[in-house]
C-alpha cells in the first residue's frame, strides 16, 4: 500500500475521530489533548524529521502562551494576539537556532543548550513577582503567572467569544491543518534535504546543501507550531504560569514523541493524546503516583519498543493483512526514522 494512501486513510480516520469525540468525551478535556498533540507534532517534526533533539520545546510553548496573555492584557485584538504569541515563539526559535546551528553545535550539546535555554526562561519567569516586572499594562506575575486575560474571540468582534466546543473545533482543525502542512513539507525538496541532513550531515553538506539554513528553518517552524500550541493553551486554561517553561513540559513532549514513534507524525500525535488522557486518569486517583507509571512506561518503551508504539502497531496491522510472507515490505508511513 503506497505511503500516500496510508497517510490519507490515517488522516481521514483521525479527522473522523476528532469530529465524533466530543459526543463521547468532554470537549474541555479534548481541547487540552489536541493542544498537547500540536506540541508533540512540533517536536516530532524538529526531532523525527530534522534530527534535532530539542530538550527545550517548552520554551516556545511558554512564549506563545505568555505572548498571547501579555498582548491581550494590553488591549490588542484577539487575532493580533494569536499572531503575536506565535511570532514571539518563532523569533526566539530563530535566535536560538541561529546561535546553535551557525555555531556548529551538534548532537548532545544541542540538547544541553536547548535545555539551558528553557531553564533560563523558567527561572527568570519565576522571579518576576515584583510589581516592577510588567510589559505595558501586563504584570508578569512571577510564580502566580498571568490570570484574567480575555479568552479568545472572533477577530474584530469581542462579543463573539470562542470557547467550549467552538474552541475545540478551532484547535482540532488547526491540529489537522498543521499535520497536513508538515506532511506536505516532508514531500517537498525542503523536507527531503532535511531528512538527508538528519541521516548524514556531512554528506548533505558535501552535496552542496546549506545544512545550517535548512536546520534553522525546520527549528523555526517547530518553534512556531509550539508557539501556536501555547496560544491555544493560554485561551483554554485562562491562566499562564512559569510551569509552562519547565523541564517537565519539555520532558512530556519528548515522551509523547518517543512513545508514539520517532520519525513519523501520526504516532506522536496519537501518543500525546493517549498519554495525556492516561495522565488525567492517573492524576484523579491517589493510589499510584502517575510519575511512577509514566516512568515505567518510558523505560519499557525504550527497552522493548525503541521505535515507539506507532511503528509497532502499523507493522502489526500490515502483518495481519498479509499473513503469508508478502511480497511488499511492511514499511509504511512511519518509515524513515533514524537509528537513534
Amino acid at each position: 500500500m503506497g505511503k500516500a494512501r496510508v497517510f490519507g486513510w490515517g488522516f481521514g480516520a483521525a479527522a473522523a475521530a476528532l469530529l465524533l469525540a466530543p459526543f463521547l468525551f468532554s470537549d474541555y478535556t479534548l481541547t487540552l489533548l489536541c493542544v498537547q498533540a500540536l506540541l508533540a507534532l512540533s517536536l516530532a517534526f524538529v526531532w523525527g524529521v530534522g534530527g534535532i533533539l530539542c530538550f527545550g520545546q517548552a520554551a516556545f510553548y511558554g512564549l506563545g502562551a505568555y505572548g498571547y496573555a501579555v498582548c491581550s492584557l494590553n488591549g490588542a485584538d484577539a487575532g493580533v494576539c494569536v499572531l503575536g504569541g506565535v511570532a514571539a515563539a518563532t523569533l526566539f526559535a530563530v535566535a536560538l537556532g541561529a546561535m546553535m546551528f551557525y555555531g556548529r553545535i551538534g548532537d548532545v550539546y544541542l540538547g544541553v543548550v536547548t535545555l539551558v535555554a528553557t531553564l533560563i526562561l523558567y527561572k527568570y519567569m519565576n522571579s518576576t513577582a515584583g510589581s516592577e516586572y510588567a510589559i505595558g499594562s501586563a504584570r508578569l506575575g512571577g510564580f502566580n503567572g498571568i490570570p484574567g486575560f480575555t479568552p479568545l474571540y472572533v477577530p474584530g468582534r469581542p462579543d463573539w467569544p470562542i470557547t467550549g466546543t467552538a474552541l475545540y473545533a478551532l484547535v482540532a482543525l488547526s491540529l489537522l491543518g498543521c499535520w497536513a502542512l508538515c506532511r506536505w513539507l516532508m514531500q517537498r525538496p525542503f523536507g527531503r534535504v532535511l531528512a538527508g541532513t538528519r541521516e548524514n550531515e556531512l554528506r548533505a553538506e558535501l552535496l552542496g546543501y546549506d545544512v545550517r539554513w535548512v536546520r534553522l528553518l525546520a527549528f523555526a517552524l517547530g518553534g512556531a507550531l509550539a508557539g501556536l500550541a501555547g496560544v491555544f493553551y493560554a485561551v483554554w486554561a485562562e491562566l499562564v504560569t512559569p510551569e509552562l517553561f519547565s523541564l517537565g513540559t519539555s520532558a512530556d513532549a519528548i515522551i509523547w514523541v518517543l512513545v508514539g514513534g520517532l520519525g513519523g507524525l501520526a504516532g506522536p500525535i496519537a501518543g500525546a493524546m493517549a498519554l495525556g488522557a492516561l495522565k488525567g486518569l492517573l492524576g484523579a486517583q491517589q493510589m499510584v503516583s502517575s510519575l511512577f507509571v509514566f516512568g515505567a512506561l518510558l523505560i519499557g518503551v525504550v527497552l522493548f519498543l525503541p521505535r515507539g508504539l506507532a511503528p509497532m502497531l502499523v507493522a502489526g496491522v500490515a502483518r495481519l493483512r498479509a499473513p503469508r510472507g508478502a511480497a511488499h515490505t511492511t514499511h509504511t508511513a512511519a518509515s524513515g526514522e533514524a537509528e537513534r
Partner: protein
Amino acid sequence: MDATLADLIGLVYTIATLALVAAGLALVFGLMRVINLAHGEFIVLGGYATIVGVQHGINVWLCILVVAPLAVGLFGLIVEWLVIRRLYGRMIDTMLATWGLSLVMTGGFSMIFGSTTTGVSNPLGAVSIGSIQLGGYSLFVIAITVLLFVAAALLLRHTRAGLIVRAAMQSGDVAAVLGHDPRRIYQLTFVVGSMVSGLAGGVLAPLTGLAPSSGAQFIAKAFITVIGGGASVVSGTLAASVLFGTVAKVFELLATPMVGEIALLVAAVVLLRVLPQGITSRWLKGWA
C-alpha cells in the same frame, strides 16, 4: 575583612557543592558516555538513606559516609543490570531510559516517604570567622569534596585499576583486546558513580530539606557542569565547577541568588558555543 573572608569561603563552598553534585555523573559520562538523567534522584536516594539510617539509630556520620553510598551503590548495581547494560552505545536511548527512571524514583519516593519535606539535623555547630558565623558543616562539605577529588585523581593516575579505566575510556576495543572485559569495567564504574552520588546525597541531606521532587534541582546543574567540563572526569568537572561556581557567586553577590543562577546558565551556553566539546577538549586533556 571578615565579610570578604566569609564571601571567599562561600565561593569555595559553591564550587564544592557543584563539583560534588556533578562528580557521580562525570564519572559515568566520562567513561561510558552514559548520561544518567536519574542522577538527581540518586542523590536524593542517598539523602533518604541517611534519614532512614538516622531514624534507626545509626550514627549520623556513619550514615552520611557509609550507609548512603552503599545503599545507592547497591541500587546502581540493580539499575545497571536491569536497564543500563542493554543500552550501551545508544546515548539518546540511555538518556530517555534514565529519564524514565527518574520519574519512577520520584513517584516511588512520594509513595514511600510522602511529599512533605524531611531532613536530618545538622550535626556540626557553627564556626566563627571574626564577627561572621558560618555553619561549620559548610567546611565539612568543602573538605569532603576535596578529599573525594584527590582520591579520584590518585586512583585514576596512580593505580592499575585507574589505568585500566582510563584505557577503557580512550578505547574500549583496545582494552578488550588486551584482556579487560569492558562490560565489567562499565558495571564497576556505574556502581562507583552511584556510590559517589549517594555520598553527595548523604552529605547534602543535613543542609537542604528533602522532598520527592528535590532531584530536579541537582540534575540540571550536574548535567551542565559535566558537559561543560568535557571528557576528563576529574580535571573537567573541577574546571567547569570553578568557572560556573565563580560566575554564579559573583553575580549572586552583585545582585540576587536568582541572577546568579541565571548567570550560571548563560555562562554554560556561552561556553558550549565557544568550546562545543567542553573545557577539557582543549585544555587539561588526558589528565583523568
